[in-house]
């Protein structure tokens, strides 16, 4: 059941990435919604689920990107695994630690992804520091907001229901 949920979340993120993201973000800053989902899943489910969701998401992105299949997968596997370990070893419930995890995960993903391409002499990225920093910030903001929404929405619905039943009495 959990696996289906993860697959569904990654699929929705991929679909949004390819259809909606280009309308939301302009210029050279580009979000990676799939990476946000992988880190989110890893933080709430641990390293095993994190690495498997990273593998699945990364391979799917590779297959859809005309890139070497496995490079994005490897990068996201590592990110999912480490984010899962951080989620189980540290208390990552406040916004700032979560922001740091999402930011660091994006930077690590970019380092592994671009590093492997450069190492294999398949692609050169110039000096992508500003683009990576921009993407990391955007991903971190989206990740933190997603966490806040997923935590606040159920409580808000409960409070609304409780308020309604009190009025009826």
């Amino acid at each position, binding site marked *: 059941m959990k696996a289906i949920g993860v697959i569904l979340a990654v699929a929705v993120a991929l679909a949004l990435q390819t259809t909606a993201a280009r309308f939301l973000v302009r210029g050279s800053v580009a979000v990676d919604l799939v990476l946000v989902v992988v880190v989110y899943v890893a933080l709430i489910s641990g390293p095993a689920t994190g690495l498997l969701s990273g593998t699945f998401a990364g391979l799917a992105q590779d297959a*859809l*990107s005309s890139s070497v299949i496995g490079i994005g997968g490897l990068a996201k596997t590592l990110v999912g695994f480490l984010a899962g370990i951080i989620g189980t070893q540290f208390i990552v419930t406040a916004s700032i630690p979560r922001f740091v995890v999402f930011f660091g995960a994006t930077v690590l993903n970019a380092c592994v992804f671009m590093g492997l391409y450069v190492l294999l002499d398949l692609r050169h990225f110039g000096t992508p520091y500003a683009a990576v920093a921009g993407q990391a910030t955007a991903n971190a903001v989206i990740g933190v907001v997603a966490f806040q929404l997923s935590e606040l929405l159920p409580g808000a619905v409960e409070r609304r229901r409780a308020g309604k039943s009190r009025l009826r009495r």
Partner: protein
Amino acid sequence: MALVDIRQRSGYLFLVVTLGQILLISAQVNTKSGVPVIERVTFGVFSEVQRGFSGGLSGVRNVWSGYVGLRNMKAENDALKRDLASAQIAVQEQRALADRTRGLQRLLELREQVALKTVAANIIGGAATPDFRTLTIDRGTRDGVRTDMAVIAPGGVVGRLVVPSARAAKVQLLIDRNAAAGAIIERTRAQGVVVGSGDDRLRLEYVSEVSDVVAGDVVVTSGIDGIYPKGFIIGRIEQVEKSGGSYKRITIKPAVDFTSLEEVLVVLAPSQARDAAEGPSE
């Protein structure tokens, strides 16, 4: 024997998955035989998902902007946009025509190059990862599109077709890091190669240090790559720097705004690059 819960062995699982992907990467890097089958199949399947999502998204946007918002103005605006797009394409064709009439050799090639056969396509998706600059269009091999066909927009050159499936195709944008096109500076006829830089700017390479190039010069396709038709606008030179070597360092602002593209034209003319790769036909 009791089954081992893999959640308790995430370190081993990580090693196995990592090793598997390293083997996968190695296999692909060693064999450079075109598009992998898995990529083509995945792309074909996923393009249908993209089509559905894009349709849903367009539907919502159309309902919002067409019915909830300014209903009459949107219809009028759409008509004006269509007219403007047609006019811009006509201007580009005229510009290409004027260039070609400058020389006898170009004049001889006029008949086969002027009437570009194109097919219009809607964009149904973007890149799956921000590191690659691609688009998905709703035309595939059933509509006659093939690998290495040029894709243009009213503003100028968009990119080339890289992975066609039956009903959709992936377009590599000119701003992708792996993209390149033969280019010529319209004013001085200095030749070079335009390459993508991964962001929203292009670089013009191999232009001699002694060439007369200034900011504002228009850069057009030279046609020597065998993919892009000659004379189509790539962009305007934004910055010219001395690199200290034999060539200038030139930055180009693309004529096309890649973030707001919605419709493009695929040039159905045969691509010399593709034909050369496929070998002589029977």
